[in-house]
């Protein structure tokens, strides 16, 4: 069954269609009847766990799960044949609760999450991990760093234990022993599973923080964050439904724009659905979202032609799937903008998006694309070894798009001027002219380096100023003050 949001974003006039559908207003309500939970032995766990792990038991006791009768075994039940099944106090259970387990009741959220950028977070970094975690640092960093956000490939050892190089882990794209991808507890703190907690910006901060994706800092520095901090107690965070503009209007959080219900726009657990651009790439691209029959999804640059519904297409993982729907970049932007419209006027939203798009295009054309072309040139000429990070310029290029370049683009996307400029594009400019280009000359030699730079920058209008060394500006002390006349010194007291 197509999820309401998917219809809304994918098909023309879909917002109208969505209007007609009985869409859930908050996160989807579990519509199953009570016979689906209340495992007969689950209540037996409580007495011992109140003593053995009082904290987590108290969290569960305070949860909606406990109130409606969802017990330990409802989530932790397993079959003996499951790869990660263990016996515990005579019962077969599993430590890891996967999205598939949660999806026994939360079917809508599971379906939406499947194939999302969150669910695919492991594959997103697969080709980066060997260089960054293995050679640049060491494998210990994979478990403690990369995998804690992106997710580990959970390994169950032959003795039934979970391999500590892959567990504990609540990375959002964790590949579970049952084949499902993700970890709901990445955002929904176990074992309380509070709606209010997951709606807080802090639910996202554990990963969306720091030099390459400073979304916490950007949000806090934006007027959205300003309002949230001041008016948090008006956010109605614990509300059953949480529709922007209806249940709350004090401020938007991460959830509001990327997942939340707003007006007629239904909520979604596909957190990347409303993102038109790829912002964490050397060159940003507008993207189609291809949805396959089996629920898998694939981001497709709009430089490539969108497939027709019903045709076959290669998925991200190399297998082939049947295309069920395609959300064009325009549709995705439309979905995002419809959230803005709850509080802002249409022209304001359109013009804000233009400011954002202009920053992305500026980064692409002036820095991202030429820097990438120069790097490819240096590799092709054998000036650089293929091994990443054994030459200084490789760090400069990497950080140019992955750190300051991403900060600039995220800053523009979420309205933090400081991140768009000082933490972002200013550093891009500084490092491009002050580090990257000198390192090109250093690596290739002055003559070849100049030739390479000329070749890739000559046609980029943004670099034309380099040919005007005589242009003046007093910012750095030009023109120099004329030297004081020597006679003046003698008259001083």
């Amino acid at each position, binding site marked *: 069954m197509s999820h309401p949001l998917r219809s809304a974003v994918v098909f023309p006039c879909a917002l109208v269609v969505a209007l007609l559908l009985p869409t859930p207003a908050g996160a989807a309500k579990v519509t199953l009847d009570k016979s689906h939970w209340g495992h007969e032995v689950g209540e037996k766990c409580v*007495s*011992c766990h*109140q*003593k*053995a792990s*009082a904290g987590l038991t108290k969290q569960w006791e305070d949860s909606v799960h406990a109130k409606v009768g969802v017990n330990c075994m409802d989530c932790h039940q397993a079959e*003996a044949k499951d*790869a990660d*099944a*263990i*016996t515990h*106090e*005579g019962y*077969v259970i599993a430590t890891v609760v996967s999205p598939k387990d949660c999806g026994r009741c939360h079917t809508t959220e599971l379906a939406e999450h499947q194939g999302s950028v969150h669910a695919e977070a492991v594959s997103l970094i697969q080709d980066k991990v060997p260089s960054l975690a293995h050679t640049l640092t060491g494998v210990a960093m994979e478990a403690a760093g990369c995998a804690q956000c992106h997710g580990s490939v959970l390994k*169950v*050892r*032959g*003795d*039934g*234990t979970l391999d500590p190089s892959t567990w504990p882990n609540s990375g959002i794209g964790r590949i579970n022993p049952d084949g499902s991808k993700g970890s709901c507890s990445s955002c929904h703190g176990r074992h309380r599973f509070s709606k209010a907690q997951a709606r807080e910006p802090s639910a996202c901060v554990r990963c969306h923080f720091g030099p390459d994706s400073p979304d916490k800092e950007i949000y806090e520095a934006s007027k959205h964050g300003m309002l949230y901090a001041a008016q948090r107690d008006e956010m109605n965070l614990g509300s059953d439904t949480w529709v922007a503009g209806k249940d709350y209007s004090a401020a938007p959080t991460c959830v509001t724009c990327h997942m939340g219900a707003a007006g007629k726009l239904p909520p979604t657990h596909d957190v990347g659905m409303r993102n038109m651009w790829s912002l964490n790439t050397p060159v940003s691209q507008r993207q189609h979202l291809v949805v396959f029959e089996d629920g898998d999804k694939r981001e497709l640059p709009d430089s490539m032609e969108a497939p027709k519904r019903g045709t076959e297409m290669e998925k991200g993982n190399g297998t082939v799937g049947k295309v069920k729907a395609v959300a064009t970049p325009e549709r995705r932007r439309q979905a995002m903008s419809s959230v803005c419209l709850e509080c802002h006027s249409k022209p304001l939203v359109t013009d804000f998006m233009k400011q954002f798009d202009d920053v992305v295009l500026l980064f692409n054309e002036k820095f991202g694309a030429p820097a990438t072309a120069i790097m490819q040139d240096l590799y092709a000429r054998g000036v650089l070894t293929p091994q990443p990070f054994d030459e200084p310029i490789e760090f400069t290029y990497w950080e140019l798009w992955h750190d300051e370049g991403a900060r600039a683009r995220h800053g523009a996307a979420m309205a933090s001027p400081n991140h768009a400029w000082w933490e972002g594009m200013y550093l891009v400019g500084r490092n491009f002219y002050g580090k990257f280009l000198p390192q090109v000359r250093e690596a290739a030699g002055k003559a070849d380096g100049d030739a390479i730079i000329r070749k890739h920058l000559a046609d980029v209008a943004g670099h034309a100023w380099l040919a005007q060394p005589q242009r003046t500006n007093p910012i750095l002390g030009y023109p120099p003050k004329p030297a004081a006349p020597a006679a003046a010194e003698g008259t001083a007291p």
Partner: protein
Amino acid sequence: MTKPRWLPSLALTRHVLFAIVAGGVAGVLFMVFLIEFDHYTSTAEFCTTCHSMKIAENEYRQSAHYRSASGVRADCGHCHVSEGVFAATWDHIKGAQDLLKEIKGKLVGPDYDDPVINALHAPEAAFAARRQFRANDSANCKRCHVLDAVVGKRPDTAAIHREDAKGKTCVDCHMNLVHRKVPDERTFKRDAWNRMIEEEFGLAPGTADRLMKE
């Protein structure tokens, strides 16, 4: 009434006295022998005269039952040989089967001295040991551990044992305390186990399955 002639005389003749004393001494000596035999054959020193047991011993030496903070040390027999001279003797007779396997392994079948073979067969050994512990209600644990005396390091450990351990025997919860960790029989997966052992010993995939067939 005169005693029929065919009944032996109950008179304490020298022969009778000798037989009683000799039999008594022999009996006492035999019991002493059995006790001493069971005692000696329950020690790690004796058990490890079989090479394969060295592997079990190495695991044991890393465990809290060998190096306990309190200075109490459990020996092989404390856990694996029943209390009481008759039960202990019976356990040793049963245990002798392992000795036969050990010897047989030198000629045909699995050689348990080989660490790989030993590890591959460890689950079945663990399952058998657990069956024995369950069958006698963890009697060997209780030789040292007294439920009422369990205090534990965490505040609620005592309460858990008092209130939540009803109807359970020690080994239901406390497994894998000494030897190589083996999952419960119900969730054990031979294939996963074989892969783990291959990885541990750096063997080509499939080696374990071949070794198990031999």
